[in-house]
C-alpha cells in the first residue's frame, strides 16, 4: 500500500491516464493506477479522466463511489483489513474485530490519531480454512488472535 504523497502533478496524472486509455474498459485500471501512485484518487484527476474517456463528471463520480476500494482522501500509512465474513465469524472473528476497534478507539474505516493505521472491514480474504483472517497492506495473516493483531498494529506504528 503506497503512502499518500503530497505532490500531485498534472503531468503525472496525464501520464497515468495516457498509459491506460488504449485499453478496452480503461477506467478501473486507470483509477487503480492513480490510487497506486497517490494513495487515493485525487480530485485533480477527475476532469482529465472525463476528457480522455468522454464521460461526464457524474458518471465518473458514480463509478468511484460505487467501489469500496477507491479513496477520495489518503488513508493512514498502513491499512489493516479485518475479515467480517461467515467463516471468520465461526471462529470468533466478530469479537476479535470489535476488540481491535475498541482498543484503537476507532469505528470501521477510521484512522488512528497518529495516522499509522486505517482499519477497514473486508468480506473474505480466501483464508477461510485458517480463520480468522486479516491483511495489513498486502500481507495476509491467518488464525489471527489478539497477540497477532497487536503485533500488526505495533509494526504499522514502527
Amino acid at each position: 500500500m503506497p503512502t499518500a504523497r503530497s505532490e500531485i502533478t498534472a503531468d503525472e496524472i496525464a501520464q497515468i491516464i495516457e498509459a491506460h486509455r488504449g485499453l478496452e474498459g480503461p477506467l478501473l485500471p486507470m483509477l487503480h493506477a492513480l490510487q497506486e501512485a497517490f494513495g487515493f484518487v485525487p480530485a485533480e484527476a477527475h476532469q482529465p479522466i472525463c476528457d480522455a474517456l468522454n464521460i461526464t463528471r457524474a458518471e465518473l463520480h458514480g463509478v468511484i463511489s460505487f467501489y469500496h476500494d477507491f479513496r477520495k482522501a489518503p488513508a493512514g500509512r498502513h491499512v489493516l483489513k479485518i475479515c467480517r465474513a461467515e467463516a471468520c465469524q465461526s471462529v470468533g472473528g466478530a469479537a476479535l474485530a470489535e476488540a481491535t476497534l475498541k482498543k484503537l478507539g476507532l469505528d470501521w474505516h477510521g484512522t488512528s490519531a497518529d495516522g499509522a493505521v486505517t482499519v477497514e472491514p473486508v468480506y473474505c480474504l480466501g483464508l477461510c480454512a485458517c480463520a480468522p483472517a486479516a491483511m495489513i497492506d498486502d500481507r495476509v495473516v491467518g488464525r489471527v488472535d489478539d497477540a497477532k493483531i497487536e503485533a500488526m498494529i505495533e509494526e504499522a506504528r514502527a
Partner: protein
Amino acid sequence: MKIWVPMDSAAKALGAEAVVEALKAEAAKQGIELEIVRNGSRGMIWLEPLVEVEIDGARHGYGPAEPGDAAAILAGSGAKALGPVEELDWMRRQTRLTFARVGVIDPLSLADYEAHGGLAGLRRALGLSGQEIVDEVKTSGLRGRGGAGFPTGIKWQTVHDAQAPQKYIVCNADEGDSGTFADRMIMEGDPFTLIEGMAIAGIGVGATRGYVYIRSEYPDAIKVMRRAVEIARAEGVLGSDVLGSGRAFDMEIRVGAGAYVCGEETSLLNSLEGKRGVVRAKPPLPALEGFLGRPTVVNNVISLATVPVIFEKGAQHYADFGLGRSRGTVTLQIAGNVARGGLFETAFGMSLGEVVNYIGGGTASGRPVKAVQVGGPLGAYMPVSKFDTAIGYEEFDAEGGLIGHAGLVVFDESADMLQMARFAMEFCAVESCGKCTPCRIGAVRGVETIDRIAQGDPQAPALLTDLCDTMRDGSLCALGGFTPYPVMSALTHFPDDFATAKEAAE
C-alpha cells in the same frame, strides 16, 4: 537438497516466509546446499506451512512448520514429520483432476507444467474444429462451478454460433463467497491451467481475447497470474500464433475494486467495461451481448481450469465420475470451525456429513456441529439433520440449499443463528448494487425485521418470511434472490435461536 515451501497465501498467512528464512539460515550454518521450490498448497490448510523434503525420490511432508523446526526438517525427523505426502489419507481419498498439479509443481515453471500433463489438452484442441471442441465439453457434462451450475458446453455453443467481428472469454475470478478459496488456490498454485483452459475456450468459440477479472482482495493471486500470462506469452502459448497453430488468443489480468456483486456475471461485465458494477437484466444473454456488447463466454475459474484435463484425458473419462446430472469432480472447500480445513477434490456424490465429520474431522473447537453453510453467503445453513444430503446440484436443491462454489463453513453450537441471519441481510444491504428494489430496500428492511424478532415481536417472523418471498421472486440477480436462503434456513431449522427473546419477555 530439494525442499518445497508453499507460496500459497494461506501458507504465507501462517508463516511460510519466516520458515523459508529459517531454513536458509540453518542450511547455511550446516553447509548444506539447498534448493527451495515455492509450490502451491496441497490443500491441507491445517498442516500449513507444509514443508516437503525429497528423500529417496519421494516427497516427505513436515507440518505445520515453524521457524524453530528448521534443523529437524533438514534432518528429516521430528514430531511433525508426516511421511510421504502422497500416502497421506487426505491425498489418497481424493480424485484430483482439476487440482492434479496444485502443490506438486512450481506454479511459474512452464516446463514443470508440461512435464505434468500441461498443454496436452490445448495441443489436442488445436487439432479439432470449433464445434468438436464444444461437443467435447458438452460430453464431459461440465457445469458452471461458480455456483449456477449451467452446462458449460451449452454456453460455449451459443457463443460459437454467434456471428460477430470480436468475441471474448471472460474468467470470473471475483471469488467473494466466504468459505471459498479454490479459485485463489488454483491461480496461485497452477496458473497455467487457467490460461490453457481459456485458450481452449477461445479456440473453440472463435474468441481471440480474454480477461481474468480477479478481486483486489487477492494480491498474491494477481501477482502470480500476471507473471504467468507474461511467461505464457513469451513462450508462445498466448499471442497471435498459439503453439505454432496460426490461431490467435491473448489475455489480460484485470483487478476488481472491492464490490462483492461484481461476482455476478453481468455486473462483472459492466465493471470490466469501466462502469458501476450494476446488474444487467437478462436477456440479452452475455453469450450474445456480453463484454462491450459482443458475444462473451463468462466462466468461473474452476470451470475453465478443468477444461485442460477434459481435453487431456478425454471427456468420457471426466464424465465417468459423479452422480446423476452432476458429472466429474467437485472441489470442496472445507472451512470455518473445522478440525481439518482445506481443499478436497472428489467425485460428486459424497454426503455432507461425510465431508464435515469424516474428511473435516468435525469442529476445531471440539464442540458439536450446529450448522454448515454451504455455497457462500447466499447458501443455506444446513442443520445436522440434513447431513445425509449428497453433494450434487439437484440433491442440494431438493433439500432447500445450493452447493454454489462448493464452500462449506462449519459452525459449532455456540453460533447464534439469528445473528447469522441478520448478518446475511446486512451483507446484502452493504453489497447491493442498488438496481432493483427488492434487494436494495428489502435487505435493509430485513435487518430491521430480524431486530424486531430479537425484541420479541410475534408478528415479525411472518413478515420476514413474506419479505424473503418478495426478494427471492423479485430480485434481478442472486444477491437479492438468494439472500433468503441463509435467512430462511436459519429461521426454519433453528427456531430456538429466534424464540429466545420472546420467551424471555414472556
